[in-house]
C-alpha cells in the first residue's frame, strides 16, 4: 500500500502529467490526498482475478470514496530484502546466502529492482540497487555481532519508492533484537507512514543471548509486534513457515504480492492529517478481503 499524502510522493503522483519543471517543486503540504491501497482478494485460498473498481467499496475514516483505478498491479517492484548477518557471513554462510539471493533475483523481472540490507549491530547496504535477474554477490561486510533488527526495519520503512513502482520489504529473521535504538512504538508509527508493504517470515527461536555482556534489550521474538507491523502495511507475517529457505519464502511472498489489487483514490471529505482508517470490501461480500487498515495522513 502506498498512501500518497506524503509530500514528495504525492507530488510525483499528481504531477506525473504536468511539466517537468513543476515536478521540481518541493511540496510538503497539500490539499489533495492521493492514496493507493494494496488489496488481496481470495476465494478460500485462491486469488480472485478480474475485479474492477466497481466491485469494491472503500471507506476512508468512514467516508465512502470513489475508487479511480483498480487492477491486478503490474507495476515494477522495488524489493528490499533484510537479512540477519550478525556474527560472521564469511565462507560457506556467505556463499549460501549469495546463492539464495541469486535465486530470489531470478524471480524478478529485469525492470524490477533488488536491494539487500544486512544487519547485525549495524545495518549496511550490501551492494546498492541491482536489476531483477542480475547475479549479485554478497560482500564480506562486517556488521557486528549484536542484533539491531528494529533499526534495520526502520531503515527500510523510512525509504520510499517512486509512485510508479511498488515497494516490497521482505525480512527473514528469528525476531531477536538487542541493540536497536528504535522502539516498537517507533516501528508502529513508521509502518503507518511507509510506502512499502512489509512481509516477515519468522524462523527459528531466538533466545536471550547474553554473550555480549551489557545489552540494552533482550528477549525472544515479539510476534505480536511483527504481526501488527505487517498488518499495518498490508503485508503478511509468516510464523515459522514450513519452509525455511529464503527463496521458498520469498516465492510465497511474491506470489501473494503480485496477485493483489491496487485501489487508487483521492480522499474526499476527510481531514488530511492524523490516522486514516481504511476499510475495503467487495460489493457482493463473497470473498475474503485483506487490505491495509489505514495510513498516517
Amino acid at each position, binding site marked *: 500500500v502506498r498512501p500518497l499524502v506524503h509530500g514528495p510522493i504525492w507530488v510525483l503522483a499528481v504531477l506525473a502529467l504536468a511539466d517537468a519543471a513543476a515536478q521540481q517543486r518541493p511540496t510538503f503540504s497539500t490539499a489533495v490526498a492521493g492514496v493507493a491501497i494494496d488489496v488481496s482478494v481470495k476465494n478460500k485460498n485462491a486469488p480472485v482475478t478480474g475485479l474492477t473498481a466497481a466491485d469494491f467499496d472503500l471507506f476512508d475514516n468512514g467516508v465512502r470514496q470513489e475508487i479511480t483505478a483498480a487492477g491486478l498491479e503490474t507495476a515494477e517492484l522495488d524489493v528490499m530484502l533484510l537479512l540477519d548477518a550478525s556474527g560472521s557471513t564469511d565462507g560457506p554462510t556467505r556463499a549460501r546466502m549469495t546463492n539464495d539471493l541469486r535465486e530470489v533475483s531470478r524471480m524478478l523481472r529485469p525492470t524490477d529492482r533488488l536491494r539487500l540490507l544486512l544487519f547485525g549491530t549495524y545495518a549496511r547496504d550490501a551492494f546498492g540497487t541491482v536489476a531483477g535477474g542480475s547475479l549479485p554477490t554478497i560482500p564480506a561486510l562486517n556488521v557486528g555481532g549484536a542484533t539491531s533488527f528494529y533499526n534495520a526495519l526502520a*531503515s527500510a520503512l523510512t525509504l520510499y519508492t517512486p509512485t510508479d513502482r511498488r515497494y516490497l520489504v521482505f525480512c527473514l529473521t528469528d525476531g531477536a533484537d538487542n541493540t536497536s535504538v528504535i522502539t516498537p512504538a517507533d516501528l508502529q508509527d513508521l509502518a503507518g507512514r511507509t510506502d512499502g508493504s512489509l512481509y516477515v517470515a519468522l524462523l527459528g527461536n531466538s533466545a*536471550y543471548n547474553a554473550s555480549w555482556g551489557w545489552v540494552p534489550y533482550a528477549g525472544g521474538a515479539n510476534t505480536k509486534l511483527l504481526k501488527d507491523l505487517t498488518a499495518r502495511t498490508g503485508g503478511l507475517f509468516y510464523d515459522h513457515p514450513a519452509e525455511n529457505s529464503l527463496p521458498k519464502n520469498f516465492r510465497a511472498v511474491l506470489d501473494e504480492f503480485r496477485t493483489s489489487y491496487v485501489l487508487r483514490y483521492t480522499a474526499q471529505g476527510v481531514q488530511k492529517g492524523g490516522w486514516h482508517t481504511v476499510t475495503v470490501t467487495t460489493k457482493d461480500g463473497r470473498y475474503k478481503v485483506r487490505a491495509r487498515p489505514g495510513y498516517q495522513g
Partner: protein
Amino acid sequence: MRSVATLAILLCGLQATPMRVPVDELLERYASGDFESAVRDTSKSYGLSDFYKAIRAQTGATKWINTGLAPLAEPATQAKRKLIVATFVLEVLDTAAVGPAGNWTVGQPPQILLEYACGLLRESETPLPAERRWHMAAMALIESAGAGPALDKHLGHASQRFSDEPRFVLATAIASELRTWPDRRGDDQLETDRDDAADRRKKYERAAAVPAVSAEAQLRWGVDEFRQNRTAAALTHFDEALKTPNGGAAPDSYVRYLAELFRGRTFDQRRNFADAVASYRAALAIVPRAQSAMIGLAAALVRVDQREEAARITNDMLGMAPSPADPWLFYGKADARFWPEWIKALRAEVVR
C-alpha cells in the same frame, strides 16, 4: 629439541597438548613490559579456572611476589609486585571474557580472580597511588559485563581504599542502574530488579553534586527517568548534562552525544518530532556516522513529513561505514570507555 619431542609424540599417535607456561614466567615477562604476549600466552595456556589455580599455587604469584626480581622483597617492592600481579589478572580477564553478567556472580572464575587480585592489593595497609587506577580499571571491566551486583561488591572495597574518588561515587549509582537492564523486547518476561528507583535517585543526586562526574550523573539520571516515562524530568537532566559543570571539566563526547540522543528519544516519546530532529542533528555533530542518531533522525524526519531528507539520510547511513564508537552501544558499559587510558597508566606503573 622441542621439534624432536613433538615429532616423537606424533609418531606415537598421541595428540600433542600445548605446554603450559608457568605462571611465574608469565609474570616475569609481564613485569618486564612484555604485556601483550604474556597475556596472550596466558590465555592460550589456561582457562580462567586453571589460571586461578596456577596463580594461587605455591609456585604461582606468591612465590613470584616474594622471590622474583629482587633477592628479598622489601614491603614497598612487595606492594609493587602485588600491583603487577593484580594488573596482570585484569588484563587476562579482559582478554578471556567479560560477559555475560552471569559470569560475574559469586563463585564464577572472573569474580573469584578479581576478588583474589583485589585482596592482594588490600593486604597493604597504605595503598599505592596507582591502586586507585587499578580499582577504576576493575570497575570498567565489570561494567562491560553489565554486572551490577559484582560492581557493588567491588565498589565496597574500592571506596574503602579511596573514599574521595568521584567515579566510585557515580559507579554506585551505575551498579544500581545495571540491575535494571536489559529491557524487554520480546513477548517473554525478563527478570530484572527495578524496585529500587528511589534509592537510585538518591545515588544519582549524590553523584550529581560531585563536579567531576556531575554531567554524567545527570545524563544517567535522565535516562532512568526516561525509562520510567517521566519525560519532563528526563529533559531537565539532559539539559543539565549538556552544561559544563562548575569547577569540573567539560563533559566528554560520550556524555554529550548520549544526552542529545536521549533528548531525541524523549522528544519522540512526547511526539515532539521537530525538537527530536534538532537533538539528533546535534548528536551527529558530536559523533558523525553514529547509526543510533542517524536512524533516530531519519525516523523523526518521516514523522514531520520530511520524507525526502529521511530517505537520503537512511541511504547515506546504509552506504557508509558506521562509527565504531557509537556511544549508544556502550551506554551500559559506562567506564569501559576509559579502559585503554587506565590500563595504559597501570602498565606505565608496572615498568616504572
